[in-house]
């Protein structure tokens, strides 16, 4: 492990650990380096138990489905995958089945994270319960 994560990731983790909305943090390779307690219901594990997860591990864990077509969404087409690949914000609705077996309609907002020196250091995704 590196001596230290980038400061932006450290500060983002501080924010995520302090709010009630589920948050994922990933590094430039897509590895899930942190998720907060409210996100545990999505992944079915605590961060303390799981540690970091690869893109393939977390991207399929909650079985994301396009609510329009009903087809599974591959990790790279999730908002977080788009933020990582194209380094731009992305937002979209998802149908997921959490690790607790409960189906949910949610929306995800993902944004790329750049350090002061314009260094790309990963992305953050925020999960919202869909209204209605």
């Amino acid at each position: 492990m590196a001596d230290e994560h980038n400061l932006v990731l450290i500060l983002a983790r501080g924010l995520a650990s302090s709010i009630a909305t589920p948050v994922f943090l990933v590094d430039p390779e897509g590895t899930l380096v942190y998720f907060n307690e409210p996100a545990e219901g999505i992944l079915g594990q605590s961060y303390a138990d799981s540690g970091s997860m690869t893109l393939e591990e977390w991207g399929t864990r909650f079985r994301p489905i396009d609510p329009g077509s009903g087809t599974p969404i591959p990790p790279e087409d999730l908002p977080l995958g788009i933020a990582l690949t194209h380094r731009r914000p992305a937002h979209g609705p998802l149908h997921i089945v959490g690790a607790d077996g409960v189906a949910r309609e949610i929306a995800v907002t993902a944004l790329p994270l750049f350090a002061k020196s314009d260094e790309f250091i990963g992305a953050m995704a925020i999960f919202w319960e869909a209204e209605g």
Partner: protein
Amino acid sequence: MRARIWGSRGSLAAPGPETVRYGGNTSCVEVRLANDTLLILDAGTGIRPLGVALGADVPRRIHLFLSHLHLDHLQGLPFFGPLWNPDVEIHIWGPPSPTRTLEQSIARYLSPPLFPVHLQDVPCRLRFHDARGDLGIEEAVVRAMPVSHQGPTVGIRIESEGRILAYIPDHEPGLAVDLRAVEPAWISGHGVARGADVLIHDSQYTEDEYLRKVGWGHSSLDHVVQFARIADVGQLVMFHHDPLHTDDELERMLDRARELWGERPNPPVLAHEGMDLDLSALPKRASA
């Protein structure tokens, strides 16, 4: 490698009878490599007497590292004698910004109406560099990494001849983080301080004061002691003293820091003007 502290006060210079033991000048540390290369950490008001002490023996090349550009780390720069010597080349290193260059940022201070002389009219030869990553300065490796403070700020780690000096004068590693509960890689500044022989670190607030100043960018005594223990540093030097803290209050803070330090060797010490730190004389540490 040797270091001398020329200013250990934070936020604002605080001269007066109640601060004579630890000094009232703001952040400035002189570092000398084995070949006498001069590195200066920050340009608070302490850099003025450093310039006076250099006198006619001023080196022709100086490396000045600015941890950040808050005034208590920059205010002394135009009063640093070598700045006015055309025979001197000063390399200024500072935190990168996406919006303006280091030169542009410093020029906002060295220009009217804040200062009568424009930066471009300073007679010495100035070279500006972004401080990021590992930098080779003579035989030393200087690492500059962003740390948690208000605005772009770097901590500085100097490795030379097997010794490590870490300098993080303004730092709030405990902001929204339980230092005891997270892995070290999730702690701001750990990569700067890890295994250092000497860590010069922000110790601005008592634990009670910090509760009213969360997010201001500084450390409580509990934070700095925890941080130093996790980073396994050899000697913690408490730095960036609050301008409202008298000498007597600083010594009470030192007692509390030592209580928190426990039975480990080399309890914390308070930085004071004129303090000499001879890293070459320290025994080599097994963990470094």
